[in-house]
Each structure stands twice: as C-alpha cells, then as structure tokens.
C-alpha cells in the first residue's frame, strides 16, 4: 500500500468518526482512498471534502469538541492555512489527528518531499504558547501505526497530534500490517470518557463550553500554566526514538523520517569503511529525545544531522548537546532527497575530517 492509503485505512480501523480535508499534492490519496472506501457503510465514519483547509481544520475543531475521533490531512502550504485552527484546538484542548505529508517550500514551492516544516510543527506554527505532540513516521508501516497511536495520545492529553510525514513516505509503497477494526466510540463512552464534550446540556450537568478565550488575564495565565504542565508531562512520558548501532558508536547521525532511512544506509556504508557510526532516529519530534542525545554526546566525537531542509532540527540537537561535541548539518532542499553516499561524504568532510 501507499503510505497515504495505509494511513487512511488505519484511520478507519482506529475507529475514526470523521475526516475533513481539502485536496493537495502529495497527500490527496488520503481523501481519495476514504471516499472510495465508503467508510460510512463500514463503520459510520463520515468523510467530507471541505471548501478549504481552513474550513477543514475548523470542522475538526467542531467534531473534536463533540468528543469524536476526527482527523484531517494536508501538505505544507495547506498546513500553513490550518495554523489558526490548530492554535484554537490547542487552546481549547481538543484531541485530534493532523497529517502533514510535507513538500518543499517556501510558498507554493514544489510537490516533491521535504522536511522544512520542522519548525512549524514543533515550535508552534500558529499564535500563542502551545505544542502539538509530533510523530514522525519513516515507513508505510508507521504511517498506519501512527493513526491509531495518534488518537490514543490525542485523547490521553486532550491535545492535537501532528503526524509529520513527507511526500516520499506518503507516496512510497511497502507491505503493511494493519490493526483489526476498532469500534467507534458509543454515545455512552463519549459521555463517560470525555465529559467536557458538547453533546447537549442534560439536566444532570452544567453546560459544557469549548473555548480558548478568557479575557481575565490571571485566568488566562493559569490556563497557560496548565498547558505548559501538560507539555512537561508529555516530555516525561511520550518521548520516542529509535537508536540504531549506537552502543559502540564513535560518531552519530541524527535524522528522522525519510532522512533516517537514507542515513541508515549511510551508517552501513560508513561501518563497511570501519568507522563506527550510529543513528538516532527521533520518532517524536515534540517531545524531542533530548536526554538520549545528551547522553550520546558524551560518547561520540561528532554528530551530523541529516534533514531535507536548511537545518531546523539541528537547533534542538545543539541544545541537547551544548558545546561538548561538534554538531553539523547536511541536507538537500527544494524536494531533493539526499543519497546515502552524499551523507557519507558529508560525514567525512564535516565531522570526521573537519
């Protein structure tokens, strides 16, 4: 299956109630698959093509505020349009899943894959102090797995979860194992599990209000402090990464998503040369695996970050490392995927020989 299709099928199986989207390359297969699959007949899930990405994300807001499992998908320019809605969702503390099958920018850029939305994904994107929980798949299998995991985490923390993929993984075909169909939430489950949801004010409770507004500055600050406490909790519990060949590593590559796949090949090539290189692949970009990178910094002589961007994640790696070892960036932009031999060369030039 294609990565985009695997994500769509996995979303149905995760018990999603609603998908709201707008076409954009390279992720249009998500909605195409859903429309063709008629999930309304399978599970009762609704699929709606909105008039814009802005409308789509606000539909997600409305659905999430009802305690439903809702999601949207888009690609970089479309995700930029969604930022206002995402800020509202984060402010009102609503659970949802957002997929970004990223492409090169800025502006209309290109339809080819890129990783230049790291800052937007992990540092806010919209206005205000908020964080999304960001998952970065590096395979079609993870595209599928993260749909279900995304909902789980979104509801656990009442927070938007962003799946930051890219055009390569979205379009790539691989074998994938899918979970069994999970039932959609019943009305009873929504009432019990999300008692804050707007489902109609019954006599036995006060009215439920979903809003991000509080004009009282003291209350608004308290709300912000609560959000920050939640983000610290995520950092404590949800940091995910994969360490490949790191045990004896003298040099380290840090890369996620498509870059991590290519870097893994580069690690093999470098090890064939007798150079002990490891790969640290962040699976969550927020929370970022700061602690493990800090620990590896005491072990290795230098770190290369590989990103399909001008170097964005490198800032978080440098924050983790401090000035203990050299940290350099290698990347390609504009939709170009770096080759493993380019990564090997960069490791030699920038880290080992540098």
């Amino acid at each position, binding site marked *: 299956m294609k990565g985009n299709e695997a994500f769509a099928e996995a979303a149905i199986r995760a018990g999603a*109630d*609603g998908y*709201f989207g707008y076409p954009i390359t390279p992720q249009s297969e998500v909605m195409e698959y859903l429309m063709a699959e008629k999930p309304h007949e399978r599970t009762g899930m*609704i699929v*709606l093509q*909105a*008039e*814009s990405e*802005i*409308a*789509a994300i*606000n*539909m*997600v*807001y*409305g*659905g999430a*505020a*009802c305690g*439903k499992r*809702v999601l949207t998908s888009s690609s970089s320019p479309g995700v930029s349009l969604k930022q*206002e*809605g995402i800020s*509202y969702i984060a402010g*009102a503390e609503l659970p949802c899943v957002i997929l970004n099958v990223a492409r090169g920018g800025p502006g209309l850029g290109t339809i080819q894959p890129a990783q230049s939305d790291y800052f937007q994904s992990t540092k806010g994107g919209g206005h205000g102090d908020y964080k999304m929980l960001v998952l970065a798949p590096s395979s079609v299998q993870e595209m599928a797995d993260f749909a279900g995991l995304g909902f789980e985490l979104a509801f656990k923390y009442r927070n938007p979860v962003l799946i930051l993929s890219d055009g390569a993984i979205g379009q790539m075909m691989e074998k994938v194992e899918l979970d069994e169909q999970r039932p959609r939430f019943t009305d009873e489950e929504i009432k019990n599990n999300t008692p804050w949801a*707007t*489902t*109609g*004010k*019954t*006599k036995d409770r006060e*009215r*439920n*209000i*979903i*809003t*991000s*507004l509080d004009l009282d500055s003291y209350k608004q600050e308290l709300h912000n402090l609560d959000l920050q406490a939640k983000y610290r909790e995520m950092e404590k519990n949800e940091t995910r990464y994969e360490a490949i060949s790191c045990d004896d590593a003298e040099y380290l590559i840090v890369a996620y998503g498509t870059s991590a796949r290519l870097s893994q090949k580069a690690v093999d090539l470098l090890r064939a040369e007798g150079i002990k290189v490891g790969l640290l692949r962040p699976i969550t970009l927020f929370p970022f695996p700061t602690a493990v990178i800090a620990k590896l910094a005491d072990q290795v002589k230098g770190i290369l970050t590989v990103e399909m961007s001008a170097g964005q994640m490198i800032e978080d790696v440098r924050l983790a490392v401090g000035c203990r070892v050299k940290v350099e960036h290698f990347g390609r932009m504009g939709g170009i995927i770096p080759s493993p031999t380019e990564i090997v060369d960069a490791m030699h030039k920038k880290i080992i020989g540098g």
Partner: protein
Amino acid sequence: MAEITKEELRQPENLIYKKTDLLTDKALSYCPGCGHGTAHRIVMEVLDEMGIQDQTIGIAPVGCSVLAYEFMNIDMQQAAHGRAPAVATAVKRLYPEKFVFTYQGDGDLAAIGTAETIHACNRGENIVIIFINNGIYGMTGGQMAPTTLPGMKSSTSPYGRDVATMGNPLKITELIAQLPGTIYVTRQAVHTPANVRKTKKAVRKAFENQKLNKGLSFVEIVSNCNSGWKMTPRQSNEWMVDNMFPFYPLGDIKVND
C-alpha cells in the same frame, strides 16, 4: 370593580412573562439597548418552548457575541473568526439527530467567513444560522463592516463609506437565498414588540425545519449598534428604521415548504 394590591397580583398564577431559564443569570455584556440581548432571548425561548435544550449545540462567533456561551444555558463551542458554519457542519454531520445553530455578526459571517457561510449554505447543511447585521464592527470599536451602508460613518470610514474606494455593502442574505441548499431565508428585526414576535416565529420555523431535516435556514436580524453609530439606543432604532431598512428590507426572502 374589586381593587387588587400589587402583592396579590404578583403571584405565580398571574405570571405571564419572565426571562427563560435557558438564559443564565449573568448580566449581558452588551451595550444598553443592543439588539443582541433580544436576539439571544428569542433563540433561547424557542429552544425552551421546543424542549430541545438537551439536544442543542450552539456555535458562538468572534465579535460582540463571542461570549454568547456565557448567557445561553446550553452546550456551546466558540469558533474562530468566521468559521462557525464549518464548525457547525462537522457537529451536525457527527450528530445528525441533534440541533445545531450558529450565531454570527456581519463581520464574522459576511467578511472573514464568507467562504464558510456560502459553502455551508450551498451544501445545504441541516443547521440554523442566526445572522445579526448591525452594519459595523462593534467589539473592535466601530470599524466599517461588509454591510456598512454607503455614506455611513465608522471609525475606518470617518467621512462616510465611499463606495468607489471602499466597495459596496454586501447583501449576503439575498446572495444566500439563491443557493439551492437553503430552505428558508428571512430578514427580521427586534426593535419593537411586533418585530420581536415576527422574529421569534421565524426562528421557530428555522428550528422546526431542522427538526424535519429540510436543509439550511438562515435568519438575518437587522439590528442596532448605538455605541458604534454614536447615538442613544432610541435614536439608533429610529436611524435603523430610516436608513437600514430601505437597504435591507424586512421580510421572508425565500420560503420553500
């Protein structure tokens, strides 16, 4: 004729009108004489009379009525500026058996949210849209709105709206009536007892339409903004009759039964 004391008269059996329990006891944040309060009350009275408080989800906009959820004793969501029809679309699609309405002002509905308004209406979402048109941005301090009349002064059209440079006022209600998804489109007012009664009938009809899955009902309420218009409440109602009504005539625009 027997005389009666005030105490004898003020007994529950003689009570004929009191504020509905579907309005909270919180004092409305609107300016004195603002039609928003009356419009809020009409909507809540209709929900009360239909007995659907426990099945209704309201969507508040950005604008003066951003805090509608403080006053309406029902489950509510506060939407991003202009996006209420998109939010309502999802709520209704996910809960087709519940009643869903948006409550929006002219800036929210007819400027920043034009796309969401037109498309929700065109899809024929089975919701009710309550549209308060007072021809001005009230909350931000009286700036020009999409519905500000030609020549009308506002803080961003201090010499009056010059149509040549500032564009024409948008009769979005007439536009919406053209769309096949709308079933009922009407324009009302709330400045006199007779108008309040008519508006309440219109709002009731709109929610009855939703009950029967008929499609989208759109109720515009032409209202005043005495603060923004820089008049007393009574003057603003008179000005509204003399100036707003000729441009935005009251009455049903589309009724598909």
